[in-house]
């Protein structure tokens, strides 16, 4: 086993490809912990960011500025009574949250945080991701059925219909991005000549963006952007978030599929929803936004710029630490808040330490890829919260109309256009020369 531990460090592939079980398990555990931490942060972030958009403060009491609120929520959910409806189908009722969670977490096997920082790199990576995330729909139908009540059943049917419809639009957008990986030309406009070989592997797609020196969102402007927008809208509908959250909206009559679930089972649905959000965001980031590549990779290239950008992760955490210290200073001087002020100061110190650690040369070169990937996914998470705060809700028939009559034709058109622009030079050459 020690051999396995050390031998991997000299290889330049993912643990899955190297067949290294120990490191693969380690990566899985790290990713699982990371995603769980991300969900916890997302819970806090959503409540605070949404509150600030609504000119209020959000949680402030449970820990300084509500930082311990997610922990309080988790404890509450764990100790809550587990209620099962008496007429419910017990096996299916128990299995449904498991199905959703397993589907949501299995997706992370191929998510690339760096050129070798993934559990494994399947050569059908993106297909695997889309397929596995679709399995979550099964869990939702199971949940609605097992509740033995017609409101959750209707809600789950609507939810699953919505998710399935938008997967088609997602798929078309993904295909046009995959098509772009086969081009050999570099820069946003060149398609290249000769037949390139595209790839479905997640790491391969980011490598293709690296070799083509352009993120696919800017390729063949505006086609890449349109494909990205189609995916961005479809992914919001896929995860049942505003403005497409009618099936789980509180003010509508039909309550969501998770009505009969309480306590830990409900928290599993919640976990799966946020994990799915992070998963589809990482698809978007990988396919169009250059995955782990740092911004301005081609325009601001060279060793000095590399060093500058490598200081960003540490600088980011130092900024957060500064914000924490600033808020510590601003805390009201009341005996009730003594412990909170201390806690916030300690938290700021912790962030500062992490920032300093990330500034150290041996760390800052290695942390770059992971940091940029996580940063881009975090931006998407903020976008999710922003949409929730701004837009009203679509009615169900309007929602389906957008999915089938707007996004599907648009995705198809973008795909055909990308293909035409891609083979354009070849067609032109063939028309001219003829062979």
């Amino acid at each position, binding site marked *: 086993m020690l051999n396995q531990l050390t031998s991997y460090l000299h290889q330049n592939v993912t643990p899955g490809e190297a067949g290294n079980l120990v490191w693969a398990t380690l990566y899985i555990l790290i990713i699982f912990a990371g995603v769980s931490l991300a969900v916890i942060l997302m819970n806090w972030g959503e409540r605070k960011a949404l509150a600030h958009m*609504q000119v209020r403060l959000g949680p402030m009491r449970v820990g300084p500025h509500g930082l311990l609120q997610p922990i309080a929520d988790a404890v509450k959910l764990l100790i809550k009574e587990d209620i099962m409806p008496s007429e419910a189908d017990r096996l299916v009722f128990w299995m449904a949250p498991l199905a959703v969670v397993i589907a949501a977490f299995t997706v992370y096997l191929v998510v690339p945080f760096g050129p070798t920082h993934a559990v494994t790199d399947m050569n059908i990576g993106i297909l695997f991701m889309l397929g596995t995330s679709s399995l979550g729909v099964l869990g939702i139908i199971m949940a609605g059925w097992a509740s033995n009540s017609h409101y959750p059943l209707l809600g789950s049917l609507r939810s699953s219909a919505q998710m399935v419809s938008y997967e088609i639009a997602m798929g078309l957008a993904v295909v046009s991005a995959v098509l772009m990986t086969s081009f050999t030309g570099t820069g946003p406009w060149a398609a290249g000549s000769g037949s390139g070989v595209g790839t479905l592997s997640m790491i391969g797609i980011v490598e293709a963006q690296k070799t083509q020196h352009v993120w696919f969102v800017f390729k063949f402007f505006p086609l890449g952007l349109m494909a990205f927008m189609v995916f961005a809208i479809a992914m919001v509908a896929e995860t049942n978030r505003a403005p497409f959250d009618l099936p789980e909206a509180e003010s509508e009559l039909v309550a969501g599929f998770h009505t009969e679930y309480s306590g830990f089972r409900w928290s599993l649905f919640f976990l799966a929803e946020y994990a799915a959000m992070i998963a589809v965001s990482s698809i978007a980031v990988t396919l169009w936004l250059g995955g782990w590549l740092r911004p301005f990779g081609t325009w601001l290239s060279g060793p000095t710029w590399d060093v500058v950008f490598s200081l960003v992760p540490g600088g980011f955490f130092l900024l957060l630490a500064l914000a924490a210290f600033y808020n510590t200073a601003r805390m009201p001087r009341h005996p009730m808040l003594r412990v909170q002020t201390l806690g916030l100061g300690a938290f700021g110190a912790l962030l500062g330490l992490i920032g300093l650690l990330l500034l150290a040369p041996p760390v800052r070169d290695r942390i770059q890829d992971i940091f940029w990937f996580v940063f881009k996914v975090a931006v998407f998470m903020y976008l999710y919260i922003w949409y929730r705060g701004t837009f*009203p809700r679509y009615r169900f028939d309007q929602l389906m109309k957008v999915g089938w009559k707007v996004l599907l034709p648009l995705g198809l058109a973008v795909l055909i256009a990308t293909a035409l622009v891609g083979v354009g030079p070849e067609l032109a050459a063939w028309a001219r020369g003829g062979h």
Partner: protein
Amino acid sequence: MKELSPTSHLEMEEKDKTFLDATELTLNMGPQHPSTHGVLRVILKLDGEKILGTECVIGYLHRGVEKIAEHRTYTMFNPYVDRMDYVAAVSNGLGYCEAVERLLNVEAPPRANYIRVILTELNRIASHQLWLGTHALDIGAITPVFYCFRDREEILKIFEKYCGARLTTHAFRIGGCQYETYEGFEKEVLKFCDFVDPKIDEYEELLTHNRIWVERTKGVGVITGDECKALGVTGPVLRGSGVKWDLRKAQPYAVYKNFEFEIPTGQNGDTYDRYLVRVAEMRQSLRIIRQAVGGIPEGPIMAKIPKVLKPPVGEVYHSIEAPKGELGYFIVSDGSTQPYRVRVRPPSFVNLQALDTMVRGRLVADVVAIIGTIDIVLGEVDR
């Protein structure tokens, strides 16, 4: 004899019955519900997702206000009327005081009337802001409610400084006003007008052209002007259907004759038009307030009325344009200190009848939006 139930009249006719009758469903939107604006019970008869008919069951907030009136003196009853439309309490007080003044044949002095108009128009803006926030919340936009309540706070602060209470204001008295305007009243009201003008623009930025909002509200809950007149529906619902009827212009009361303002109307009678009408009304109210503040005359604020009010035997019906429609008071006096009968014509009660017409043929998801667009307050519906 076939037994009648509350929903008998909603039974489908033979020709409407579908082949698989199992799709017919009676749904109860119970009194406790996050979005029926109070304790309103709506029984829906559905064909799948389409609505065939509705039945409203009210009375969950009935407090016997009209019965209480028979056992209180006219002055004592004044605080009770605020509690009917508790969202816009000042209008209720205005209607009642003016009705009793008609009965007594006195007129409030001009200064009191100006103060009344300013407070009533501020109250109209506050009511429409609350309506906008809760209506947007029902449709799914969760932020306008906070913006509307934040801006409404300024109005409530002015009310608090003037009469001592934010919501149940008891602002006016029979014969005029009790309180003189406080120091800096005019300045604060003008400051508020300048503050809220860009805020109304902000609400519009968020909603008016938003494609999701337009799709949720255009064509939803249509009612024609004739149907409104047949049902007795008044207020922004009537004006949204194109009928230019506003009691402030048709039967002017207080000093509305002195001010220049427009009556916004809609064209299609759908939810979107009613939204535009109410937002425009907020702007027109600001116009009235600015004109009124500019010209408050000096003078007394209370007319000469006896200490013990004993109106002569008779009856009066006086109505005003409350934010929700025509609010009317029918008071019968038998010569004693207590009224013989006070009957309130609440706009929400009459407007609620339009729910059935508006909701037929629509989907279940629209019911909540349509109840919101009628703008009802259960305190008024049930009294």
